[in-house]
């Protein structure tokens, strides 16, 4: 007689099976809770490495978007400021035209000159506008860019720098975020302060008012041309903001593809594991408690 002997102790095997099932259930529960199938690098080493890259990229996107927000505030403030400058210059022009009227008395012209003087002061204040402590038209200098200086022909001296700043708003995508104040206000033959200063002098002396008005008008055109820079920059930011939004959506889809847990599959597996667990436990319970000894009398 020969028969195949089987291991009379199946317990260790069943215990190993139980251990494995418990581990699988734990992993599945963690995946369901976190919604991610990569909860530690060993869950998917290549995926975890990819996630490190994606997380960095995503942080960059957030950072670019934040930069765009900050820069946009500065740019729109600058643009609004230049708009006010334009309005002030237009007012100066109409005052100049009014002053050129030969029927005006000296006193009337003096009054007009006085008002233009006020405009000059307003212009100076606008050119020195700061946003959150940052002078908008100081180039890269950190001080009040336009100061009164009796020695200068226009009575105003530029103390800012010629530097410009660029801010990164995308991978390898930089946008210039300022113009030096001198480029806006001190254009060759179109110096705002010089023109208004000349207008005041002309009004006070009642000579060359027409030429002075033309000069102010030129400086206004020049300033308007410079102002386009801010509009363009804001447009660029707007476009980039939109495309960053799209990129972020793509990125989150990528995150999902790389690390997203397949909820349906995980729940199904979890249910299967639980069934298997019950079955194993039942099997363990059914292991014969007795033996042939019980039946021998």
């Amino acid at each position, binding site marked *: 007689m020969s028969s195949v002997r089987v291991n*009379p102790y199946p317990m260790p095997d069943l215990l190993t099976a139980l251990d*494995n099932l418990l581990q699988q259930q734990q992993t599945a529960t963690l995946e369901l809770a976190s919604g991610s199938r990569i909860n*530690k690098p*060993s869950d998917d080493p290549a995926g975890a490495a990819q996630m490190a890259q994606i997380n960095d990229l995503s942080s*960059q996107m957030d950072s670019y978007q934040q930069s765009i927000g*900050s820069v946009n505030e500065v740019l729109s403030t600058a643009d609004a400021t230049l708009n006010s400058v334009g309005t002030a210059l237009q007012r100066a022009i109409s005052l100049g035209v009014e002053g050129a009227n030969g029927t005006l008395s000296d006193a009337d012209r003096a009054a007009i000159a006085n008002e233009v003087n006020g405009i000059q002061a307003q212009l100076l204040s606008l050119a020195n506008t700061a946003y959150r402590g940052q002078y908008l038209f100081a180039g890269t200098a950190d001080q009040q860019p336009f100061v009164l200086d009796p020695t200068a022909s226009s009575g105003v001296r530029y103390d800012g720098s010629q530097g410009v700043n660029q801010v990164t708003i995308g991978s390898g995508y930089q946008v210039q975020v300022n113009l030096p104040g001198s480029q806006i206000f001190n254009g060759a033959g179109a110096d705002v302060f010089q023109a208004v200063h000349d207008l005041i002098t002309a009004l006070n002396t009642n000579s060359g008012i027409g030429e002075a008005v033309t000069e102010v008008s030129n400086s206004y055109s020049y300033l308007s041309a410079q102002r386009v820079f801010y509009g363009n920059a804001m447009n660029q930011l707007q476009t980039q903001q939109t495309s960053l939004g799209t990129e972020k959506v793509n990125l989150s889809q990528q995150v999902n593809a790389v690390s997203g847990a397949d909820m349906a599959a995980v729940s199904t597996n979890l249910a299967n594991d639980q069934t298997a667990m019950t079955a194993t436990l039942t099997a363990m319970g059914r292991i014969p408690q007795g033996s*042939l000894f019980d039946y021998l009398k």
Partner: protein
Amino acid sequence: MSSLFGTMSIATGALAAEQGALEATTNNVANVNTPGYSRLEPILVSNDPVVVGPLTYGTGVSLEKLESVRDPILQRRIEEETQDQGQLNAFVSAMQQAQVPFTASSGDIGTAMSQFFSSLDQLSTDPTNLALRQGVLTAAGNLTSVFNNTANNLSQQRSDLDLSVAQDVTQVNVLSAQIAKLNTEISQLQGVNQDASALMDQRDVLIGQLSNLIQVSSIQSDNGLTLTTANGTPLVVGGQSFALSTQANSDGLHDIYSQGTDITSQLSSGELAGLIQVRDQKIPGILSNLDTLAAGLANALNTANQSGFDLNGKAGGNLFVAPPANGHGAASSMALQVSDPSLIAASSDGTPASNGNLANLSAVHDQAVAGNQTPTDYYSNLVFEVGNDVSNGSAELSASQVILNQLQDQRGAISGVSLDEEAAHMVQYQRAFDAAAQVVSAINNLLYTVINMGVLTG
């Protein structure tokens, strides 16, 4: 020719043999839950016949021996697999701890690097803003502490592993001594032809425990059992055991010596091998990668900061304390050089509100600063390698577990005690005993008859 007394002695011999066989069954039943016990099988042999003229008479049965049923080759396979499993188990559980700092979270190196570069971006929108400058310093300080913590954490794990190595060596020595003692007892018993199977079972259990700890090869020779470890150095030769010793190496870690030879790096299986692999190769490897990354990053950012001007218009200096020239310990010692936010060299021309040099600092994000890779690429490779070690180790461990289970099943099938079988044997031996007793009784009757033949029944 046969005699009634001869027949009687056959029957009594049978009684003794069946009783002995029952003893084997009893012992098997008693040891049904003893780990490593190999069941006993009674070897019954028929006695040499007596030839008288043309007739051959059987002379009954005797119990030759109680043989313990074991498969030495299977036992060796189990030991080998146990060694593999010991190594994998130690390796995987150590690496599982080592991968923790590399798990994507708010506190990992990758996030800290991203946050630092983000803070530079923010500063570029308003370079004179002290709050934003402080933001950059805070992010940089956070980066250094994450590097410090990760490196220190790994070093701590290394020391913990070293402690386990020392403990395992002590354990190995205890087991070797016990095995040597059993060897002596076994050879004494065998010397007088006695059954040593119980001791051999005990020894197998101890060898199993030893195998879990250290790579062991066993050789059975006339002089008893010899156990050698890596490099062929002996742990046990017959009744003598050779203790392993430990000696602190230049890193302050325990090297393992067997009779004066350093076998630390020669162990390829057993728990010790797994511990040593992580302690001496994996963690130092990760640490060295972290050092490369920390040093590369600090140097590149320092260089970038030096190329610009700070808020006071002075040429920029080091942002981080210059890492050691050989990079060794760069991660654990990474520290900020500056604490004054105005010293961040944002300006490219000395004008305070210039942000031109921030672009140079930000550009480090895409520079090959470590191992010809960008910081993020280098870091994500590191994540991959650490994760891969755990993942591969775990897969091997599961496979090894399956093999070991199968081997143990096989061992159980050969050597394990089945109560059903023992019950059947018991009945069998009991009936044989009953039958032999009947024979004795019958012969007794015959003898009675013969004895009374000469008595007149008048």
